């Protein structure tokens, strides 16, 4: 609809007055009449055409329909509230919060006190809130008041960042705990030996020294594991280039891991002779850790199978299969976490550092491979490593 401004009375009067003056001074009626008509016509036209600026302000400030189409496919959950009632929730918001939040009070969707403070004051601002969809997640809640009624709420997921920083602090806490435990017992035994009153008998002395040696060895193992873990992490992004013959490497590393006593339990099924590009020392460590674990946690009376084959996907596949108690399902996803233990007492008693599988996982990742763990309780576990084959065929090596 065209809107009219005020009728230009002042302009019309000025036009008439000017033309009358022209007629008086010049006496030319036709000329002054023509000038008057043209002048009035321009005024008339201007009167009907709405001014340009006015049209812009005439568009409704926030068209809800249009805004909802605009935000619908955004990757972040976005909601529009009118007087703190949710009127629009985009696709992501409906997924995260549930479709039921539409037409509800904003406080039903965000019951965290920090968010409610912003909602209640109709304020523009940000807050970090927990437990929007699940109890442990963390979101940045960003509310912008648009006009008296409308406000936009945007959510930014920060759970991952939070997890990373927590994992880091957990790691430091765990590492210092793990390092301190053997140190504390070493100090304790040495103090007893030094200050023992009366002095310890040779037998007790021998026993204490044995314990000290054990703990010191554990400490050494832990430090070297931590070192290799951080070294692998540091080189994570450059693919190793050396060409490695897997079969002899696996045989040698398995024998090393088993030691003379446990060697008879090894059951090799090396059906292929693949080459991969990799870091031989790291691959040796990978095999050692897997075989050592299998021998340690498998049934001592039963063999550990080490199978090597190639897959159709141009991968070398190493499977280390033990026969023992197996691992409970709930532990499987956490096994490669640092210092994660399914049974702390048993793992420490057998001299584990809690880092073995974390190292394996990092080595596999560095070789662009995959680690799969399957386990059947009461039967045993299978650790499968797949590493892409080297393009060069073995004959050319």
């Amino acid at each position, binding site marked *: 609809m065209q809107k009219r401004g005020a009728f230009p009375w002042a302009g019309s009067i000025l036009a008439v007055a000017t033309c009358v003056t022209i007629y008086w001074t010049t006496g030319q009626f036709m000329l002054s009449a023509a000038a008057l008509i043209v002048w009035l016509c321009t005024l008339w036209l201007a009167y009907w055409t709405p001014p340009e600026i006015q049209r812009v302000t005439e568009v409704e400030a926030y068209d809800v329909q249009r805004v909802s189409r605009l935000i619908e496919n955004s990757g972040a959950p976005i909601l529009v509230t009118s007087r*703190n*009632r949710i009127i629009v929730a985009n696709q992501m918001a409906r997924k995260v919060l*549930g479709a*039921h*939040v539409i*037409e*509800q*009070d*904003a*406080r*039903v*969707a*965000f*019951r*965290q*006190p920090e968010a*409610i403070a912003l909602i209640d004051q109709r304020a523009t601002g940000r807050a970090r809130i927990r*437990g929007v969809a699940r*109890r442990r997640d963390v979101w940045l809640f960003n509310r912008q008041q648009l006009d008296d009624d409308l406000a936009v709420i945007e959510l930014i997921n920060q759970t991952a960042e939070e997890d990373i920083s927590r994992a880091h602090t957990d790691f430091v806490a765990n590492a210092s705990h793990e390092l301190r435990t053997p140190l504390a017992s070493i100090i304790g035994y040495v103090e007893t030996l030094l200050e023992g009153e009366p002095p310890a008998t040779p037998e007790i002395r021998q026993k204490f020294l044995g314990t000290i040696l054990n703990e010191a060895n554990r400490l050494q193992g832990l430090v070297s594991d931590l070192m290799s873990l951080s070294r692998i992490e540091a080189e994570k992004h450059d693919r190793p280039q050396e060409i490695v013959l897997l079969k002899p490497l696996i045989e040698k590393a398995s024998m090393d891991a088993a030691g003379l006593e446990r060697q008879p339990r090894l059951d090799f099924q090396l059906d292929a002779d693949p080459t991969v590009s990799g870091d031989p020392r790291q691959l040796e460590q990978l095999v050692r850790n897997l075989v050592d674990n299998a021998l340690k946690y498998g049934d001592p009376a039963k063999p550990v199978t080490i199978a090597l084959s190639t897959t159709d996907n141009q991968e070398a596949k190493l499977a280390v299969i033990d026969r023992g108690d197996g691992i409970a399902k709930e532990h499987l996803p956490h096994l490669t976490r640092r210092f994660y233990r399914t049974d702390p007492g048993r793992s420490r008693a057998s001299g584990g550092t809690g880092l073995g599988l974390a190292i394996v996982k990092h080595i596999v990742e560095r070789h662009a491979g995959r680690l799969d763990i399957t386990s059947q309780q009461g039967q045993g576990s299978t650790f499968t490593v797949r590493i892409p084959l080297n393009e060069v065929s073995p004959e050319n090596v």
Partner: protein
Amino acid sequence: MSEHTVKAFDEDITRLRGLIAEMGGLAELSIQEALDAMIRGDDELAEGVILRDKKIDAIEAEVDKLAVRIIALRAPMADDLREVIAALKIAGVVERIGDYSKNIAKRVGKIEGRGTFEPLTLLPAMGEIAAEMVHDVLTAYAARDPVLAREVIATDEKVDAFYNSIFRNVVSYMVENPKLISSAAQLLFVARNIERIGDHATNVAEMVHFAATGYYPPDEDSA
């Protein structure tokens, strides 16, 4: 819920639900902070929890007033009436949950020798489950979701099992460490409070189920 002819009624119900959610949010935070304060021995955090309870009480009073006003002025029927009655009852229960958190916070200063007090390490796992229940039941309320409500009810068993195991643990700890009996006794009360929080979350779940469906969940045998 379908729209009503009287727009003001819709607005009242929405506000009522908003208030319940706000209360629930405060109670949820209180549980978490009370447990954190208990485990870390943080007196300031505990103080905050105790102060927050006043706010929860104030909102409960507001819910009561609003619910009574809705009933008096609008005479709601069927699911609307259920909604209002459930809100009234849920507000009372959530307020109790807040009280239990406050009670836990009040006991923070009474635990001695925190660094070496082993039974303290048993609490977080139990508290975690109870807090999870409260979170889920509030989500179920917001979504009017009877299925989630029934899941919450089923979880209560776990909290009860935890309570029994903590009870046995703490009692045997008392026998071995007579010096710390008073701290251990405090801890028993804390465990008891957490167990009650779980029970109350179950009660809320039952009312959510009632408001959504019109009947209480079938196997109703909680404490």
